């Protein structure tokens, strides 16, 4: 009797325990995979933000810093998330090489999992087939918008830094070609310069050093009215530093964002009220740039694209799982993203074969658009 009552109580406790857990937690979980802060702060902070916003719903993982080398570890992170039956969607930002392989592996066993990819690095037609939704700034369109912006900032020449590995990415190569055409149309000289590959044996420091040296060289050769653009995230900070010093023109970063490169290059002091506050950061950058006499010569997007990719990705995944959105409906997706970004944008899909969405945002010019 005594034994039995204990069993009953134990069973009850167990049932209640399970029930309370299942009652307290949402019906599904979403996995997020981002890089670490040493790769780029925005995407990671975006993840921190949503984790705080939806407590208990998200599982956050990071991929290795040298993701190129440790591709298998990266894939294992994703399949590891998928091994948890509660996970119904996975948001990856950025979609570094290996993402497609990872999606395929997961979908073998868990075809129900929804994949949202921010900033895919692999070839769009391949990503498009596998990922449920991809979000990326519209790089081909930026092939026209950036030279136009440069012209608006007063540029007479346009210089594009990249290196072979990036030029083997079709979107980036296409964008380069479009830029060249657009420059011709606008009457600007287009200059292509190869920089050392940050993944090469000299590593990022060698690439950054090259930028620091080359910008003054180019300004000396071509004059101050030259706009610079580089395809590599790591190069943005030295590029901005060198441009500030040389007084040249900077239309936008590879991944447009007020927090990408600017705070570091300006040595912005992050006080309590500034930390994590985008509008305040934009203002502080603006003040600094104006103070340095560079008003009207530097610009960026008002939103941090990497941050946006993470946050919007999670939001879309959540809505889709709650069946509140049809991911194939571009307008609906656009609405969600715009709401989060707080600005309007132009959406475009790569093709009808999937949901590879590219978006374009109007720029803000420091010393002009920011009050």
């Amino acid at each position: 009797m005594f034994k039995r009552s204990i069993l009953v109580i134990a069973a009850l406790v167990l049932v209640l325990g399970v029930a309370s857990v299942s009652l307290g937690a949402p019906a599904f979980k979403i996995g997020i995979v981002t890089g670490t802060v040493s790769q780029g702060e925005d995407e990671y902070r975006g993840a921190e933000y949503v984790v705080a916003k939806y407590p208990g719903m998200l599982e956050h993982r990071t991929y290795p810093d040298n993701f190129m080398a440790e591709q298998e570890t990266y894939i294992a992170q994703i399949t590891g998330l998928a091994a948890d039956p509660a996970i119904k969607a996975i948001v990856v930002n950025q979609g570094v090489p290996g993402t497609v392989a990872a999606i395929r592996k997961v979908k073998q066993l868990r075809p129900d999992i929804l994949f949202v990819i921010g900033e895919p690095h692999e070839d769009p037609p391949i990503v498009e087939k596998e990922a449920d939704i991809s979000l990326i700034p519209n790089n081909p369109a930026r092939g026209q918008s950036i030279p136009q912006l440069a012209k608006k900032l007063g540029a007479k020449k346009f210089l594009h830094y990249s290196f072979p590995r990036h030029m083997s990415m079709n979107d980036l190569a296409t964008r380069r070609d479009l830029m060249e055409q657009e420059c011709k149309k606008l009457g600007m000289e287009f200059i292509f310069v190869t920089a050392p590959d940050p993944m090469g044996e000299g590593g990022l420091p060698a690439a950054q050093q090259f930028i620091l040296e080359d910008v003054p060289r180019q300004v000396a050769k071509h004059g101050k009215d030259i706009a610079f653009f580089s395809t590599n995230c790591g190069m943005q900070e030295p590029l901005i530093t060198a441009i500030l010093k040389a007084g040249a023109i900077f239309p936008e970063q590879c991944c447009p964002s007020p927090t990408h490169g600017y705070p570091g290059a300006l040595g912005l002091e992050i006080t309590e009220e500034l930390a994590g506050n985008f509008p305040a950061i934009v203002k502080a950058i603006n003040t600094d740039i104006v103070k340095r006499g560079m008003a009207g010569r530097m610009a960026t997007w008002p939103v941090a694209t990497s941050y946006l990719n993470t946050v919007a990705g999670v939001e879309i995944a959540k809505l889709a799982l709650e069946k509140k959105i049809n991911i194939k409906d571009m307008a609906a997706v656009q609405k969600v993203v715009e709401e989060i970004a707080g600005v309007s944008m132009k959406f475009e899909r790569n093709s009808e074969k999937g949901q590879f969405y590219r978006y374009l945002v109007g720029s803000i010019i420091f010393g002009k658009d920011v009050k």
Partner: protein
Amino acid sequence: MLEKPTAQVKTPAGGSGVGISDILRNWSVPIFFLVISIAGIIAARLDINYLVNEVVGRFGRNAFLVISLIIPVMAGLGLNFGIVVGAMAGQTALVIVTHYQVEGLAGFALAAVISVPIAMLLGLLVGKVLNRAKGREMVTSMIMGYFANGIYQLVFLVLLGTLIPMKDPVLMLGSGIGLRNTIDLIGLSYSLDRAMDWLWNGFVFTSVGAARLGPWRFPLCTLFIIGILCVLTTFITRTKLGQEMRAVGQDMHIAQVAGINVDRTRIIAIMMSTVLAAWGQLIFLQNLGTFNTYSSHEQVGMFSVAAILVGGATTRRATIWNAIVGTLLFHTLFVVSPLAGQRLFGVSQVGEYFRSFLAYGVIAVALALHAWQGRSSKQSK
């Protein structure tokens, strides 16, 4: 005159002892790793099904590459970081096969065949260079990897479409020069891994009454092929050639005196290793299903070497068991450690840093343990 010998010469104690201390000495590094992995599994509270699935999958992908390291060690060349070059040969074959859209197992087989002459040629070149850098083979082969990478980029990014005529809008960049950075191998995907699944599904499942052996998915045919490779590697050691390699590996001078062509034997060892590495890379990539044209091969050497070291191999002695145990343990650690790190620290990126700190630190310590043992055993003699 000398007195007649009274005692007959005794035979030395036959065979090597199989005491616990011997096992500990020979397998200390794997045991060390095993302990760390188990600690990691406990810390990460990992789902065992997931772990088994993942580790077996990674074993299938990597074992072939790791086994390809054995022959050069046998021939005294140390750990061959030059398998990167072999991986490039495999990828070249893949590009060709994908271009001509040969799919499935036939495509895989064709790629395997095409990669052989390429890998042999490259292996010959690597071998010749290494023969001129005796005693510094490992560093040299590592740099050779970087060097070959430059050539590889030159060929596939610049020459293809200019000097080498090729037109393929799917594989090549919009400009018509050079390959795209990702190549989709959907046609070859799992072509080898699943080539024997009919056996599993049609035979094993029905006869056992459809009892599933856990929710796992094993690359059956690949495991089979790895088994064959193990047998083949053992076979090589039992041949005349294998004996020559072992002799060269143990003592180049004595081998030379015994009339063995040392340089040639070393080159053959490197060529074999390079061909195996090419096939290993094919297996790796057919399992992934996509490949990064300019980076898939880069770290093949680093990781395979780490795996075999973890298995208890040294730069002078490596067996198939070292390769197998090493691959399993190394990948267990790499599956377990990110989660363990995350669970321990609560913050995902700190976990990630902790993981690489631990993983590489453990390899350094493992190497240190080896060298230390090597010295103490020498002293005890």
